[in-house]
């Protein structure tokens, strides 16, 4: 009897998803759905927060006042995006403190791209163009994801992301029209960021067993490989405007397919970086832990002060 009731709830839930009706925090949802969302949203939030570090690395060295201001604004936006996403996850019954703890203890993962170092100013441009470009392509479909708070957070984020990509491309464009040294800096950054960027779309479809199911559930509108192909096609054209090259000798227009063919991705590197062996994994987490620990007394002081003031304002009981 009880089992029957659960199946009905599950059926109703599935019907709503099928009809594109958003699931909201107080609605019944399968436990597995809730867990998967928590994991997914918090990993996305962690990616935003860890992503502040490689770019923040250049704030104090930005080469002009305008670049300095726009870079601060961009990194600050990422803090905002992390905050929107943590808030969305909190509607599912997990606190931000728990999620941050999972990040700091290595239980939760984040996008592997942020474990690569930013070595020159051109890297800031390459991140904007390629990394944010790949992120936008992944994120736009999430604006229609089935969980309401997540979808709404994504709408906000996507609006702000387009400014980031334009900013990045403009940095590269300026370098590409600059001195020989600047051009070399630009090409070098593209060389280092290209492959990690296309890895951001995740494993190939044949190595990604859940894709078919997610598609059926209308959670995923495009497969990893479809999105990756779309990204390669766009970048292969945009790089011409920069007068630069993508570091892939096999990149070639395939008229028959109507797409660019491209070389083989080094998945071994992808999994190594994901599992903690990237160039900066340890530094990134250490930086987050340090900020969190050094902020502990500040957070405690603020709550202690708020409690004291609340006590004072409460009229004394006679």
């Amino acid at each position, binding site marked *: 009897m009880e089992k029957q009731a659960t199946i009905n709830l599950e059926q109703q839930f599935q019907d709503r998803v099928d009809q594109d009706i958003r699931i909201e925090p107080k609605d019944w949802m399968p436990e597995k759905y809730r867990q998967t969302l928590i994991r997914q949203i918090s*990993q996305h939030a962690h990616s935003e927060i860890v992503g502040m570090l490689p770019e923040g690395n250049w704030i104090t060295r930005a080469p002009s006042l305008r670049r300095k201001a726009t870079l601060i604004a961009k990194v600050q936006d990422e803090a905002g995006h992390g905050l929107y996403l943590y*808030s969305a996850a909190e509607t599912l019954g997990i606190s931000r403190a728990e999620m941050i703890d999972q990040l700091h203890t290595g239980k939760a993962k984040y996008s592997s791209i942020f474990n690569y170092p930013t070595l020159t100013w051109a890297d800031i441009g390459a991140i904007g163009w390629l990394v944010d470009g790949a992120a936008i392509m992944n994120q736009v479909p999430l604006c229609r994801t089935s969980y309401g708070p997540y979808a709404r957070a994504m709408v906000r984020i996507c609006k702000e992301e387009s400014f980031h990509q334009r900013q990045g491309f403009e940095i590269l464009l300026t370098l590409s029209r600059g001195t020989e040294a600047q051009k070399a800096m630009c090409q070098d950054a593209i060389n280092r960021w290209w492959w990690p960027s296309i890895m*951001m779309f*995740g494993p190939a479809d044949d190595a990604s*067993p859940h894709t078919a199911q997610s598609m059926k*559930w209308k959670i995923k509108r495009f497969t990893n490989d479809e999105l990756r192909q779309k990204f390669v096609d766009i970048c292969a054209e945009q790089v011409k405007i920069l007068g630069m090259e993508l570091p892939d000798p096999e990149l070639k227009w395939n008229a028959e397919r109507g797409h660019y063919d491209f070389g083989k991705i080094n998945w071994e590197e992808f999994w190594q970086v994901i599992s903690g062996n990237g160039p900066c994994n340890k530094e990134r987490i250490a930086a987050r832990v340090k900020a969190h620990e050094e902020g502990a007394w500040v957070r405690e002081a*603020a709550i202690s002060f708020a409690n004291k003031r609340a006590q004072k304002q409460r009229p004394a009981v006679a």
Partner: protein
Amino acid sequence: MKTFIQIQRYGDYGDREPVKAEGATQNQADWPLWEVFIRSKMGLDHKHVGSLHAADAQMAIENARDVYTRRQEGISIWVVESKYIHASNPDEAASFYDPANDKVYRHPTFYDLPDELKAM
């Protein structure tokens, strides 16, 4: 009926351990959660835009200004601690909202007015 959603999307690389969602202890030093409502333009209602953490109401308003109005989205901010929000129960949605279905007189298009009447 065990095939629930296995999402494999951006940012989802699997976990080493399952995520714990309930029963976790809340540290006393963690700032409470606040819901933020912003009025975008003169005359429009305050709209829920999201939430944030703050130690007190004053700080919540300032945080809301910094977080949710970075692009001049608002001119007025309300905040309320999330625990004070009471929400309707979705299971009762039928008794709550369906009766309004037949009260078409609440909607402006119910009234048949001459086309010459503009801007009403």
